[in-house]
């Protein structure tokens, strides 16, 4: 019941991440995990334990992630996982929000001369098993009445290997994952991501049913990052802004200089400050891991703040 107590007692957060998707979750040369999803884990650790490095990362595949979460092996899962009805209800998980609005795309070698997914009749498609994309793929080809040959695969790295070797013509997964994978190719320019996005893939962190307090903590840790960007709180200025109450009451409440929201979720007042200080706000995390300046080069698109015409919209801190 009390995941929070467990985590505190353990002094570490067990966080499920992908086995390796560049930019989202991958260990760097010195073995530290880095990436956009990893940042969510670190944020929660910063909020709960005050230490963004107090995380035990558990690499999971599309297939193993849910059992890892359900069995309690991990406290939360931050692994480009799509929020769906059945996962939320039938699989008994709580999605606490969306950290990346995505959709399923296709990547093919340029040499094939394919310009639309509808032209893929008879193609061999690499697909990660146990994912929504596997089901979407089946639906897409059935609806369009064309055939394909699925090659089931466990991890992104394997998919990449098979795709590059030509064992499949197409690789399909979340468009962000495709971009990330392509960015590591020697000749990225030889591969195109087709324009069709065949599904909605709202990706977000999730926790088990049955511990709402813990769900709240993860949910508001994510929201804190989003809100911080909206209000212009960055890792650079958070120290200064949290030193004393400022004139934006919402920011004050966020940073714990006014009211004590932290206490309501069983954390100390500086919880959000810790997040932003050690991890950064949503925008910073995005830019440093997957943004336009990185090899992955994703634009904000739907993931811009609502104020910029995107879908990101943190509920008020009140």
């Amino acid at each position, binding site marked *: 019941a009390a995941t929070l107590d467990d985590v505190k007692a353990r002094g570490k957060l067990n966080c499920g991440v992908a086995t390796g998707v560049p930019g989202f979750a991958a260990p760097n040369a010195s073995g530290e995990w880095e990436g956009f999803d990893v940042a969510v884990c670190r944020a929660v650790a910063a909020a709960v334990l005050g230490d963004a490095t107090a995380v035990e990362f558990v690499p999971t595949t*599309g*297939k193993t992630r*849910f*059992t890892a979460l*359900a069995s309690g092996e991990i406290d939360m899962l931050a692994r480009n996982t799509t929020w769906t009805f059945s996962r939320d209800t*039938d*699989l*008994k998980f709580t999605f606490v929000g969306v950290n990346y609005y995505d959709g399923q795309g296709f990547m093919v*070698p340029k*040499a*094939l001369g394919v310009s639309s997914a509808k032209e*893929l*009749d*008879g*193609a*061999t498609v690499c697909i990660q*098993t*146990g994912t929504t994309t*596997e*089901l979407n*793929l*089946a*639906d897409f*080809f*059935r609806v369009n009445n064309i055939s*394909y*040959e*699925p*090659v*089931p*695969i*466990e991890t992104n790295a394997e998919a990449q*290997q*098979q795709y590059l*070797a*030509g*064992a*499949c*013509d197409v690789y399909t997964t979340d468009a962000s994952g495709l971009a990330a994978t392509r960015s590591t190719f020697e000749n990225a320019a030889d591969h195109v991501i087709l324009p069709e996005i065949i599904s909605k893939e709202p990706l977000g962190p999730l926790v*088990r*049913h*049955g511990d709402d307090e813990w769900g709240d903590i993860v949910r508001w840790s994510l929201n804190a990052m989003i809100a911080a960007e909206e209000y212009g709180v960055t890792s650079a200025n958070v120290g200064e802004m949290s030193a004393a109450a400022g004139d934006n009451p919402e920011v004050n409440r966020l940073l714990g200089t006014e009211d004590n929201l932290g206490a309501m979720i069983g954390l100390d007042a500086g919880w959000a400050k810790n997040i932003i200080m050690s991890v950064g706000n949503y925008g910073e995390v995005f830019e440093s891991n997957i943004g336009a300046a990185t090899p992955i080069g994703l634009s904000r698109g739907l993931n811009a703040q609502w104020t910029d015409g995107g879908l990101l919209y943190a509920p008020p801190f009140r």
Partner: protein
Amino acid sequence: MATVTDPPKAAFRLSMLIYDTRYRSMTIQVVALIGFLLLVGFLISNTAQNLATSGKTVSFDFLSKPAGYDINQTLIEYNNQNSHLRAAFIGLLNTLLVAVLGCATATVLGVIIGVLRLSPNWLIGRLMTVYVEMFRNVPVLLWIVFAMAVLIETLPPPSAFRGDEPAATMKVFDTVAITNRGVYIPEPLFSRSLGDIHLFGQSALNFDVSIDLLLIVAAVVGGILGARFIKRRADRIQEATGLRPTTWYLRLASFVLPVLIVLIALGFHLGYPALQGFNFQDGTYLRNSLIALWLALSLYTAAFIAENVRAGILAISSGQTEAAGALGLRPKRIMSLVILPQALRVIIPPLISQYLNLTKNSSLAIAVGYMDLTGTLMGITLNQTGKELETLLLGMLIYLIISLSISALMNWYNNRVKLVER
């Protein structure tokens, strides 16, 4: 002389539960049973409690829901709107397919290698020893992923066959395409096909059986019976006259002719694979996942079988060969009349347990994405439905049934061929 009174008809005392051999065994059994029941009860109550907290219920309803996912290799009709049960059935068939293929190849390879290891040719004996040690001492999973890597990394993709000056060409008179997705070989087609028989109506496990196939099987069986008849006749002639007629060509004919006739009657011809679009079309497609698994399992198991075969042959003392030789029997006859009948008794029991191991090892299919029972029922179905308990228990039950059937076969054989001893 001390008189002996009547035996003290001791009334039952509690201590007899522990000290009296008659009751003691009962006590132990009852304690064991209680312990076992407690354990089971403990597990069940935990499970119930855990399921209740996570809000799940145990039910097998999901089996009739649409699976939603596609499977690349299906021996019988399947699409993603079929039920999870059918998907599991497809997986089971795939498991059985690779198990049967693997056992057959492993046996052939194992026997050859085992015999060659005893070869008087030093070099070949050594090579086979290297083979056996190499495969026995490295995990089978490593061999499976290794085989898959070899296929993917060293063979050309279908796209290499494209263009005016393709980087790769088809083999064997342009009828076989070897690609890193798999191997395409000509497929048998029947211009006067007799259609299919549909079995099990509308149930989830329904499937079609090709009448053509049944006919061919019937012809093969007929051929075997015919060959046996010819052999029996040869036996009879030999018994009567002492001379054994040469019958190999008759037996060959009785094998081949019926099948040939059926094939011609059905209008048999081959369909050749041809590059069309992204892939080769037509032809029989052996996916690389199947090939890798099949190859690795057979090579690995063959190493063990080779050892069994070698041990079996060595177990027949050289005295048997010498005695048979001293009677004037030719080496071929010594093998077939004296050595083999004895060696088989030694070889077959461990051989069958190797079959059992191979079948169980076929569950490593998931490492290469071969959709067997572990890949479907205990893989994707488990994952998409979140029914860990149900799918795993069902899957284990199916494996258990397969294993127990194989061991039953082994026991039957053992009892049948036991050598008569004093």
